[in-house]
């Protein structure tokens, strides 16, 4: 059986859901998806200096009538906590795709605390979580997450598990 190309499938879901602004702090887990987005002329792809910028940027995009998604690593979830007040207080949609570290066979001890804390922190801030542990769960998770975010004006995060992405030595 041919291995599923889940980043390409994620990209198709983003297009189908009308996402036109992507912002990210790069992660190797998101590498192929970022490349696919950059190849599109009708997508704005912005590299951030820190993850919380992305929460503001996507709020601005929504004020201007555009849908976006924020691509970050689990360590970056720690940087967006207070920024999550903005979409919460304004009842704006926020779609975050998180590549997880610090869980399945992690090789870097510094990734463990935020990796373990990511689901708890996001839930504490009122973010609805969708998790994908295997390639066949990626599309349903993102599609459900995007539908929830943009139909109900709330913050959602898709957690792409480290088992799916692959453990890293560093």
């Amino acid at each position, binding site marked *: 059986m041919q291995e599923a190309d889940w980043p390409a499938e994620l990209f198709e879901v983003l297009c189908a859901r009308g996402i036109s602004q992507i912002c990210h702090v790069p992660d190797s887990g998101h590498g192929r998806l970022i490349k696919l987005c950059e190849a599109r002329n009708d997508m704005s792809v912005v590299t951030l200096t*820190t993850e919380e*910028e992305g929460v*503001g940027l996507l709020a*601005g995009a929504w004020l*201007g*009538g555009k849908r976006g998604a924020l691509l970050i690593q689990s360590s970056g979830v720690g940087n967006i906590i207070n920024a999550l007040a*903005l979409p919460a*207080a304004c009842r704006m949609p926020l779609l975050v795709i998180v590549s997880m570290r610090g869980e399945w066979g992690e090789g870097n001890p510094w990734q463990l605390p935020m990796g373990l804390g990511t689901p708890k922190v996001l839930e504490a801030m009122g973010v609805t979580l969708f998790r994908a542990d295997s390639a066949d769960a990626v599309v349903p998770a993102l599609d459900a997450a995007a539908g929830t975010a*943009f*139909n109900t004006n709330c913050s959602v995060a898709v957690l792409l598990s480290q088992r799916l992405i692959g453990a890293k030595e560093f």
Partner: protein
Amino acid sequence: MAGFLHRRDVVKTLLARRNADTLVVAGLGSSAWDVTAAGNDDRNFCQIGAMGLTVPIGLGLAEAQHDKRILVITGDGDMLMSLGALATVAQVRPRNFAIIVLDNECFGETGGQPTHTAGVADLAAIARGAGIEDTGEIREQGEIDALIADVYDAPGPVFRTVKIAYETLEDFKPPLDGAYAKDRFRVALLGAKAAVGGA
């Protein structure tokens, strides 16, 4: 060196030239009160919390609305919290974007404790170093006309620090309910359909 321009006069003069194509994003605290005092316009979006996001919000809006002029009006405290965003702005290089920092060299909402600009930090120099080519600092009343021309007409991104006095002024509060403020802005910009969702 501390400034002596009056923030409310500067913002009122600056926004007197706005039209339907002008979208304003204000930083929390006094900047939001200044913008609201100049006119509680539907095309204002005022930060009430989540400090440090004013420039990123403006950037996302500028990317979404290329035909509009986006003005970010914020304070030195908020700007200092998101210096990295200046590098992001420089990289994206939105032609329709201007940042005006009202610099009173202190945290005005919390008792006037000095910020880093009261010391040696120079925000216009930082913006220039981040890669924003058109930067400057305003200190004199006689520079206000040029400030307005640049903020509205010069190719963006434009960055200006306006050195202002530290004053305690009356609060002019915008709508504090974010959901209402967001819908009001979106309906003014995008039409009535924007209130019932949809991009």
